[in-house]
């Protein structure tokens, strides 16, 4: 404050400043502006007094009023900014939301868990040059059994209780009839295919057995294919499907359409091989059967077994899903309960 300020101006300015501090909102501020700096405001009226002053005091007084006016305008501007900021802050505070409320999502659908596993299997085998080959659900006894080296009344038929339509027609019990279809279609070209599809067994429907299930089978036929190739292919698949750290083992088994035959076990997913109820305390889960294509089957497919060799493998998709995800009841797969289906990622 300048020392030579007119006492009248000083007083007016101090009064104005005090009332500015009291202006608590934008409307009050506007009223303040009119009352102090408006056309008939306190400061403006001071100027009118100039006329009554001695001429030599006039410039000094005028300059003093103007300084007070400028000073108050600036104070008003600052106050205005302050009040606007506060008003915005209040407005924004009013717009508060609960960020923990659920987000808005478009209705989404999901693939069936079996489809998800099938696609994963397709992808892994596609990388090894295996292509998908589909064939029909209803088959003849010849394609489902006899051409696969399973004659009528053979004990191996006990392994697969069959739904028959009549003496000759049946619901395929495995995807293996596709092996014969594919071989007859492609012989003598080399083959590398996987055969997915729904298969049927005449079983009671329980937590552990179903009348239908997906199987994926693989078939490779060429000159020079060996059992070592079979091992390498399955191990490669298992590493990608179940994880590189999971041990895999091959144990001797029996299937009429392969010779030698093996079952493939993978270290139990749930107990990491320590033994639990799911793996029946063996530490291993059976994931598929496999073997070298039986010479009789090669011949039936149109390949000379002395020149060609091949391997085949196959396993159940739902069983794999159950093992991987700890599903204890196979009936969930066809019950189509949305609470089950919605558990897929």
């Amino acid at each position, binding site marked *: 404050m300048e020392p030579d300020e007119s006492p009248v101006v000083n007083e007016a300015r101090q009064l104005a400043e005090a009332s500015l501090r009291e202006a608590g909102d934008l409307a009050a501020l506007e009223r303040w502006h009119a009352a102090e700096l408006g056309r008939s405001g306190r400061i403006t009226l001071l100027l009118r007094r100039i006329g009554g002053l001695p001429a030599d005091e006039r410039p000094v007084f005028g300059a003093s009023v103007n300084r007070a006016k400028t000073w108050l305008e600036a104070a008003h501007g600052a106050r205005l900014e302050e009040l606007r900021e506060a008003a915005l802050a209040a407005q924004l505070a009013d717009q508060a939301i609960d960020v923990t409320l659920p987000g808005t999502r478009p209705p989404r659908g999901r693939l069936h868990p079996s489809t998800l596993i099938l696609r994963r299997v397709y992808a892994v085998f596609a990388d090894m040059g295996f292509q998908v080959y589909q064939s029909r659900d209803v088959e003849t006894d010849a394609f489902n059994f006899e051409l696969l080296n399973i004659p009528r009344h053979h004990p191996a038929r006990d392994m697969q209780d069959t739904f028959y339509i009549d003496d000759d027609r049946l619901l395929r019990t495995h995807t293996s009839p596709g092996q014969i279809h594919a071989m007859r279609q492609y012989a003598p070209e080399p083959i590398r295919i996987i055969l997915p599809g729904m298969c049927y067994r005449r079983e009671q429907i329980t937590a552990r057995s179903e009348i239908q299930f997906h199987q994926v089978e693989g078939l490779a036929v060429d000159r020079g294919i060996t059992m070592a190739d079979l091992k390498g292919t399955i191990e490669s698949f298992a590493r990608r499907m179940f994880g590189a750290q999971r041990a895999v083992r*091959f144990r001797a088994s029996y299937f009429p359409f392969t010779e030698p035959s093996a079952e493939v076990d993978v270290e139990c997913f749930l107990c990491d091989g320590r033994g639990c109820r799911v793996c029946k305390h063996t530490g291993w889960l059976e994931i598929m059967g496999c073997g070298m294509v039986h010479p009789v089957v090669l011949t039936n497919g149109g390949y000379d077994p002395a020149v060609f060799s091949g391997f085949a493998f196959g396993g159940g998709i739902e069983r794999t899903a159950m093992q991987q995800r700890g599903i204890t009841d196979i009936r969930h797969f066809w019950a189509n309960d949305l609470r089950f289906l919605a558990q897929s990622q």
Partner: protein
Amino acid sequence: MRVVMSWLEEYIDLSGVGLPELCERWTLAGLEVERVEHVGDWWDRERLLVGAIVRVEPHPNADRLVLAYVDHGAGTPHRVVTGAPNLLSLRHEGDLPRPLKVAFAREGAELFDGHQEGWVKTRLKGRAVRGIPSDAMVCSEKELGLSDDHSGILVLDTDAAPGVPLADVLADAVVEMDLTANLARAMNMVGIARETAAILDRPYRAPAPVPPPATGPAGPGGDAAELVDVVIEAPDLCPRYTARVVRHVTVGPSPGRLARRLRLAGMRPINNVVDATNYAMLEWGEPLHAFDYGRLQERAGSARPRITVRRARAGERMVTLDLVDRALDEETLLICDDAGPLAIAGVMGGRDSEVTAATTDVLLEAAAFDFISIRRTSRVQKLPSESAARFGRGVHPALTEAGSARACGLLHDMAGGATVAGSVDAYPRPPAPVTVTLPPGEIERVLGVSLPPDRVRAVLERLEFTVEPRAAGGLEVTVPPHRMDVALAADLLEEIARVHGYDRLPSTLLAGGLPVQRDNERLRVEEAARDALVLAGLHEVISYRLVSAEREAGLDREHHVDPSQYVTLANPISPERASLRRSILTGLLEAVAGNLRFTDRAALFEVGPVFHARPDALPHEPRRVGMVLTGPHAERSWRVDATRHLDFYDAKGAVETLLERLGIRGAQWRPDRHASMHPARTARVQVGETAIGHVGELHPRVREHWDLGDRPVAVADLDLEALQSLATGGEAAFVPLSPYPPSRQDLALIVDDGVPAADVETVIREAAGPLLADLELFDVYRGPQAGPGRKSLAWSLTFQAPDRTLESEQTEAARERIVGALRARLGAEPRA
């Protein structure tokens, strides 16, 4: 197969191989171990010992109790008070000339309580019994957990000295194996020993049994041939039948050790004669049957009995050992005498010639039967038996000799039987020996590994194949008579691979060139359809393809069903799953009905085949895409204010998403009828002349039938084969983007209610010409402002040119053309 370890160890030395390791090696070699049961693994080695009762005295204060003095290897015999009935008879004996070996339990031993029902363990505590202190026990089988027999104490037939831990004498393990159909040879102890010997590469010992020397008077019955005739009328089903006669048997219980083994092996001890046949079967794999020879003589009127092996005659019946009177079909193979059936061959004996307590002479049958015939009969008669399980997988005719000889030996040892000299051996069809050539290089070609010739030979010889090198290279291998499963080189490769160890084969990747890679349009379209419908918000379901035709008739509002169009099973598990579905909607509606019990909204789809029967041919299996949508259009949420129900247009939208994803353009939607659908809310979808399927809301009758509530249920049933034929694999051609501003206008029209929106759209597009870049219907209104029988359709029109900014005169002109055309062709008026 239950492998009793103590029994197995009679043939092979298993030292150095722990049971867990052995189980793993068996499993890897194809003898899959299901589980291991331990006997006596909980016995206290300090407190459960072999004892020898050296003296028995009466109890001074009780008639039904005795005092037994038991030597348990610690100096003075220990006095025990017991009420065991089998000691009571000895109470006046004093010192026993031959001490009785028993299971002796000291104070503190844990045992099962013999007096309680079930299995309750207790700890042995000393107490006074009628004034005589007793702090130890001699045990019954039940107390040791061996069986539920608590009728007396267990008497051991052991050479073990008193004081030896009981576990060393009596503990055992039973390994239960799940054997595949090709492992008939391993369904006996000797077979398991042979396999084990090969797997462990060490010898086993199971000398071929010979019958005990013939005894008894000569004269009538001096030779078996004088006592019985055997006639095989069905040599196709019975290649061999060997009969022997054993006389003067005393039927009674079997010795404890043998009975225990039978029980551990899963068979119930019957009497020493039947047990002898079962034991010989378990040991050698040859099922045997003992007939009461005296009864056969009676049936023959004291003449020489004649055994006939033949098929059953029409209407023939017999009562089997299980007391069931059975009707026999003409494929059933029987063992008969002149009076009628004696046994169902290989499956079960008959009641009338059963060995009883009164039997003194036995006719012992050892035979071979056609495995298919036995399997069939066992199944038809619902009679699984240990015998049928073995014959049903194939028993080589050569095995009759060992089996029969072993049983005669056991009858001699256990029942005092005297084997009559000779046998009657009808052997019409001895199989030729099988030799298989293993070509040089075959192992490497198929297994991918090169094995030293010595190793190959050793493996095969351990399994008792005879191996001769061929001049031309490779091996000539003769198959041993206990095996019927080896006929090809591939069979030998399996033996070599599994015994050598699959884990020792190398792992390689396929080395050959890739086969020609082909596009799989069928799979691509199927999977693209799934993706599109998931994108449209639908969940995929997979239903039973087996349905009930009657249930599926509920899809037809008139419930019409023509069974001849269905593929129907001859042997369904239930009427609900007896036919293959003809409609993809069946499972979907079942799924909706099921889910509506838990939720009020379901939007589902399924992709898969349906089945159309064709007489005398395999059915047609076209693939369909089905959808069903019902409930609120959005899932319930805190944000959704108003809900409407899913309806026709939601299903249509899903189908449009599908068509777009498959690159199918130009679909036409025509009102149509469908047996399941609402007559006024159903469309046929087609592209050109190709029908794709139907979309509509369910007919209320159908909805009611499936119990789906009273809201609309929108469905679609599309032909995936048609979609595949229309799908364009490639991407759509690029349309250049205009840099010039678009001009948008709204146009509301009033037309007759019956005018389809698609017709209005066609007229607008035709009249507008190329400047119309986009056209959208944004409102449909019926009400007072439209007038009765009329509706208002409001369109948003976007005009844009690729090469310039449009002037308002140009868009005005287009608008006028459009309005004029609509008025002229559809009677439409612009809404004021």
